[in-house]
């Protein structure tokens, strides 16, 4: 509970601002709550912020464009709050450089869990899950449709992915050729906390390989690096 991380909440609803601020403070965070973009920039100028909770619908400049601007000058993690809850909005939020999203209505406990996991992930792998505005990502004959969250094979057959598979694949695609440790990969996986991490991540990688038809005796796409973790051994092309 002892963190002292500084979280900023940007939301135009005063009541939600107040409630979130209170809840975060109660849980050991330093919290600043502001109503719009201008106040956000002012607060950022005043001192270090570890994480921003940003509402998508804001008066004046909206959350998406604020997030994009923010990304161009800092890598502070962002959790986007969206009221629409539609896949496209969620993904658009991620494309604009948000690290995670939360659909309204959400509970304070859910938000707290996301704040924790995003901060943990940020510290484990200090790069954002930003795919440079990509809506599709090509690698080794496959195309990942980011909005629909499924793979399309070279001959046009759609292969749906589970939430965990999608997350994992995005981590690999954001870091092609880079060896990722199990801990790093795990920080992105949202699963049951009770399971032993190593085992879970191995299982997920093997499932992902199966989806990609890469599950022979000698995987070529996602290779195992003994004692270190996994690496995606394929060139990746981002497309808008």
């Amino acid at each position, binding site marked *: 509970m002892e963190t002292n991380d500084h979280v900023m909440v940007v939301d135009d609803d005063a009541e939600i601002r107040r409630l979130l601020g209170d809840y975060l403070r109660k849980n050991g965070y330093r919290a600043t709550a502001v109503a719009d973009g201008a106040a956000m920039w002012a607060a950022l100028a005043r001192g270090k912020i570890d994480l921003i909770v940003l509402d998508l619908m804001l008066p004046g400049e909206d959350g998406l464009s604020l997030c994009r601007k923010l990304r161009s000058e800092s890598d502070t993690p962002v959790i986007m709050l969206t009221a629409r809850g539609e896949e496209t909005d969620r993904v658009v939020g991620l494309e604009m450089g948000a690290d995670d999203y939360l659909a309204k209505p959400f509970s*304070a406990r859910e938000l707290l869990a996301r704040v924790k996991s995003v901060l943990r992930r940020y510290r484990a792998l200090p790069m954002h899950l930003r795919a440079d505005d990509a809506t599709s990502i090509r690698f080794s004959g496959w195309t990942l449709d980011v909005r629909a969250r499924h793979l399309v094979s070279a001959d046009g057959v759609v292969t749906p992915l589970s939430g965990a598979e999608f997350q994992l694949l995005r981590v690999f695609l954001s870091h092609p050729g880079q060896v990722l440790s199990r801990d790093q990969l795990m920080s992105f996986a949202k699963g049951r906390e009770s399971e032993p991490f190593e085992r879970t991540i191995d299982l997920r990688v093997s499932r992902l390989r199966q989806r990609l038809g890469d599950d022979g005796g000698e995987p070529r796409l996602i290779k195992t690096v003994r004692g270190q973790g996994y690496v995606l051994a394929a060139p990746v092309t981002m497309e808008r």
Partner: protein
Amino acid sequence: MRFAPKSLFGRLVLVLLAGLVLSQLATLYINQTERDQLLYRAGGMRLAQQISDIVKLLESLPGPERRRVVAVFNRPPLAVTLDRPALDLRSEEEDADFQLSIFTSVLRYALGEDAKIEVGRTHRPSHEHGERGFGPRRGRFGPPAFTVQVPLHDGTLVTFDSSVLPPVGTTTLRLALTLAVLLATVIVISLVAVRWVTGPLTVLADAAERLGENINRPPIPEAGPAEVQRAARSFNAMQQRLSRSIAERSRVLTAMSHDLKTPITRMRLRTDMLEDDAVREKFDRDLAEMEQMVTQTLEFMRDATDTEPVQRVDLMALLESLQADYEDMGKEVRIAGRVSRPLGARPVALRRCVTNLVDNAIRYGARATIDVAEEADRVTLRVLDEGPGIPEAKIERAFEPFFRGEASRSRETGGFGLGLGIARNIARAHGGELTLRNRPEGGLAAILTLPHPA
């Protein structure tokens, strides 16, 4: 009109054919009578020529010779006799008898203007002359049946009885054949023509049928006959009005559901501050229910305007990815059966459809089994649970929005909400169907069939 064909196409063909047959019959009748008149005229000329030739021959012969010659010429259809008394051949109706006057003038022309010819209709039957089928016959346009008496210059009276002309040959078979060919031609032409005329109607009917699948389908072409064009225009206008009215309602409902999210969020945040766990849980449950309604309503409204393209989908990968998602949430989903070919479907919508069915199965029966069967032209997905099922009488009502199976149970389970309705809409938008059935071994089966042409 009990035996009238059902389709407009059939009726039009019938009307055309009936008209054609009637007009053919009338033409046939007219031709037949014309033919008789022609034959009559030609026959009359020949007869007059023949009579004048015989008379001229007899004039040149002495008495006994005449008898022999007459015996030679006395052959059907012309009876020639020498010793008949003068007959009173003039009748009152002579002037009115056009045929007779023509024949007389032709005869006079052949014999010379000064010949004392007596021409008249023969009213007596032919067998008077003792030969069957040989004698004058009466009939309006029948072959000429005349008696002609011509005095030779020595006073001998030659009597000619014209009789039935030999038939020119039967044409009935040929006529029937001609008619058959004509009819066949017209049937083929009218089939093509009527299809051309009724084609746009078929397009219209198909469009009306498909409107149920997609209210926003492109307007039908306003082509074809004027009446059909008008119907197509009205149809397109109706579709537009329907679509607008649905869009209007959707906007209201969407805005309402959407705006409810902020107050619900506030309440949830406030609830999280509550110290009393029991009270907080109750609030949480109610809020979760409200939230579900709002999210499902938005999802339901979104379906109506979904424009996701149809793609080839690996159905097994879809089911296995769902299974993995549920496993991550600690829920058990089993998969039985296989599909070998990719399925033509909208992947995101189909996933939502199956998710809704599995959610229900898990909510009511703890775990779900998805049974897949691939047939020649379709795929059947049966999502089975081990729950209590639904009373048979209420099974169809489960598709209604926010239907609750059993009051006491659904208080805690939240009912089906809009999940089944959304799932059925998606199934139907794919040209498939979703039904519910209580399984004999207990539990509910949601049966989703999707077209899967080879």
